[in-house]
C-alpha cells in the first residue's frame, strides 16, 4: 500500500477532516459518511487518514479498514487526474464494451485498476452508469462518452492529453 509521503496532505485537509469527524461522530452509522467525505477531501483513503478517523470515532483501525476495503467506491490508492471508467454493465457488455476496455488498456499502457506513471489517467471498470441508450459507454471524470467504437478511444483520450499541454 502506498503511504502518504511525510505528513499526510495539507493542514487545510487535516482541518477539514477533523471538522467532518466532529460534526458527524454522534450520528449513528456515520463511518461510511465520514469515509466518503474523507475521500472527497484527499482523493483517496491513505492509511494515516484511516488512523485519524479510527481515533476520532474511538473505534479500531481494523474496523475502519474493513469498511474501506469492502466497498468498491473507496480507494486506498491515489487516482489519476482523469478517472477513466468503462461500463461493463450488461447492456454495454452485449454491445462490445469489453473491446473498449481492451483498447483503453492498450492506449494507456495500464491494466484496469491502475494509474499511469504521470498520474494523468487511472482506469477502472464500472457496473452500469445508467446510460444504456448510449451503450457502450465510458466515463472520464463526469463526462459520459457514448456509442463508442474501439477506434474512437484514442481520439477521446488525446482530447484530455491536449488539455494538459
Amino acid at each position, binding site marked *: 500500500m502506498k503511504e502518504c509521503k511525510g505528513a499526510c496532505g495539507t493542514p487545510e485537509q487535516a482541518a477539514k477532516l477533523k471538522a467532518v469527524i466532529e460534526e458527524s461522530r454522534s450520528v449513528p452509522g456515520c463511518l461510511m459518511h465520514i469515509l466518503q467525505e474523507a475521500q472527497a477531501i484527499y482523493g483517496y483513503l491513505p492509511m494515516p487518514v484511516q488512523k485519524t478517523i479510527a481515533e476520532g470515532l474511538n473505534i479500531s483501525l481494523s474496523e475502519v479498514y474493513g469498511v474501506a476495503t*469492502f466497498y468498491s467506491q473507496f480507494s486506498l490508492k491515489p487516482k489519476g487526474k482523469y478517472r477513466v471508467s468503462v461500463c461493463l454493465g*450488461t447492456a454495454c*457488455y452485449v454491445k462490445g464494451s469489453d473491446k473498449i476496455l481492451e483498447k483503453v488498456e492498450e492506449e494507456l499502457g495500464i491494466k484496469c485498476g491502475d494509474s499511469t506513471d504521470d498520474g494523468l489517467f487511472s482506469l477502472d471498470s464500472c457496473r*452500469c452508469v445508467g446510460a444504456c*441508450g*448510449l451503450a457502450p459507454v465510458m466515463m472520464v471524470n463526469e463526462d459520459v462518452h457514448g456509442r463508442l467504437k474501439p477506434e474512437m478511444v484514442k481520439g477521446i483520450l488525446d482530447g484530455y492529453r491536449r488539455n494538459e499541454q
Partner: protein
Amino acid sequence: MTIKELDVIRAKKKALIDVRRTVREQGEKLAKQTGYRKQVLVCGGTGCTSSHSMKVIEQLEKSLKELKIDDVLVVKTGCFGLCSLGPIMIVYPEGAFYAQMTPEHVKTVAEKHLVKGGEIVKELLYQGTVAKDGSIIPFAETPFYKKQMRIALRNCGVIAPEDIEEAIAAGDYSALEKVLTSMTPDDVINEVSASGLRGRGGAGFPTGRKWSFAKASQGDIKYVVCNADEGDPGAFMDRSVLEGDPHCVLEAMAIAGYAIGAHQGYIYVRAEYPVAVERLRIAIKQARDCGLLGKNIMGKGFDFDIEIRLGAGAFVCGEETALLTSIEGHRGEPRPRPPFPAVKGLFGKPTIINNVETWANINPIINNGAAWFAGIGTQTSSGTKVFALGGKITNVGLVEVPMGTTLREIVEEIGGGIPNGKKFKAAQTGGPSGGCIPAECIDTPIDYDSLIAIGSMMGSGGMIILDENDCMVDISKFYLEFTADESCGKCTPCRIGTKRLLQLLTKITEGKGEPEDLVKIEELASHMKQSSLCALGQSAPNPILSTLRYFRQEYVDHIEKKHCDAGVCKALLTYSIDPQKCHGCTLCARNCPTHAITGKVREPHVIDKDICIKCGLCMSNCKFGAVVRN
C-alpha cells in the same frame, strides 16, 4: 403547509400540468389559462444528460432571449422513456416530440416553431410520429407508448422534479393528505394489502403483509427504509423515478410511517447516481420547508423525517439485511433471517424496507382505491411493472406495462424489434439473479409466477435483449464474473461456489471443457441454492441453470465440438481467408495488429494462425467478404 395552502398551489398550477397530459385541442384551450403560449419540456434524466441535454436547455434559453420570446416556459423534467433517441424535447400544447436534439436543431426549432405563428419542424421530429402522408401522430399513439400504462412513472417526464409546486399540482402529497385526514393506520394497511401490490425489487413479497408485520411488532421506535441501491447492471427504473418524481417516494414513506408508527425514514441510494441524489436532497429540503416532512405534517400532529444514506458500490447491499447493516456504518454483509427486518431491523428496531418502484405505486393505490389497482394486471400480480429495456433492441429505454403483457408485445411492438435484421434469441430478466426467456417462450405473459415457472424471475426490472450473435455460455460467464466479484465473502457456498462455477465456465469457453463439467456445474449450483446465506448466493447459479435448460446444446457444442456458434468465444474461433474471394488488396494485412497476414499485392493472402489474436479486424475491414470465421 396546511391543506388549504396545498389547495392554493394545486389551483394555481393545475392547468400548467394538465396541458402536458391532454391532447392537442383541449391543450390549446388550457394553455390560455396558464399564461404560457407554449411549454417546452426537455429531459434532464441521466440518459439524456449523457447525450448533452443540458446544452439543449442552454441553447433554448439563449434562443428565446434573442428572439425576445417571453411566453414560452422551459421545463427540465425526468425521463420520457425513449432513451435511445435522446436528447428529447417535447413542445406543448401540440405534443411535438423532437428527438436527438443538438444546439443547432434547437435554434431551428426556436426560430421556426416557437415564435408566434410558428409551425412544427417535421424533419426534426421523432420520425415515428410523422405519418406517411405527412400528418403528425400524437406520440402517445406510437407503438412505443401505446401499450404502456404509466402508474409508477405517472409524473416522470411531466413535471419539473426540482419544483415542489409542480409535484403538488401533479398529485403528490394528495394521498398523504387523505391518509392523515380520513384514514386510520389499519385502513392504510388494509388498502395496500387489498391492492395486491407485491415488492418491485425482485422477490415479489406482498407489501401490505410486510407493513402489517411491522405494525404488529412492539416497540416505540420503528423505521421506514427505501431501497434505492439499484445494483443490477443494465437496470435504471428506480433511478428514473428518483430523478423524475422524487416527492412520490417521500410521500409514500411518510404514509408507511403513519401506518406502522414510525417517525424516521432512510433512503439508501447508490452514490453512482449523482443526479438522483441531488434531486432527492432538493426534494427533502423543499418538503421540510413546506412542512410536508418534519414535525406536525399538514398541521395533523404527525411527525416524520427522512435522511439520505449513500451506498459505496456493493451489489450485495441491495439485499435488505445487508443494506440495513450498511446504513449502520458497517461492511454490508447480510445476516440470517429470521428475525426479519419487520421484527428486528435497522439498529435492532422494527423496520419496513421497500424498493423505490414499490413506493411509487402507493399514492395511486390510496387515491384510486385497492380495487382499481387490483383490476390492473393479472390475478396474482396486480398493477404494472417498469422495465429498463436494453441490449439488442431498437427502442432502448424505460417502459411501464400492465403485468401479464407478453414478452412478444414488449420486444416486437414497444421495443420496435431487433436492429440490423438479426433474429431474437432470448431476453434476460432479473440480471445476475435471474435467467433468460428463450424465443420459444416469447408469448409468456410477464408476471411474477409465469416467469418463475419458466426458470427466470421478474427481478427488479432489467430486461436485456439478446440476438443470434450472443453466446449464452459467454453471457452466463459474464454474470458469474459479476457475482464472484460482488460476493461479500461471509458464507462459504457463495464465496467459493461462485468462484468454482466461474472457473468451470471459463474452462468451457476456452475450449478445455469436458462432458462431466456440466454435471459438476449442476451439482454445485444446487448446493449453492440450498445453502447460501442470502439471495445473492442462492440466485447466483440462475443464469447458468436457465441457459442450460434452454440452450444446453450450445454448452455441448463448446465442450464436444470446441465450437461457439455465435462467434463470441475467442479461443474457439479460427480466421482464414478464402483464396477464391480474396483480391489481394492488402487492406487486411495493413490493419492486422500482429502482422499475422501475409501475401503479395493482387494475390490471395494467408493468415498465420499461430500469430493471429482473433481480434476480427481483418473481417470487419475486408470489402470482399473473403475472411471466414469458423
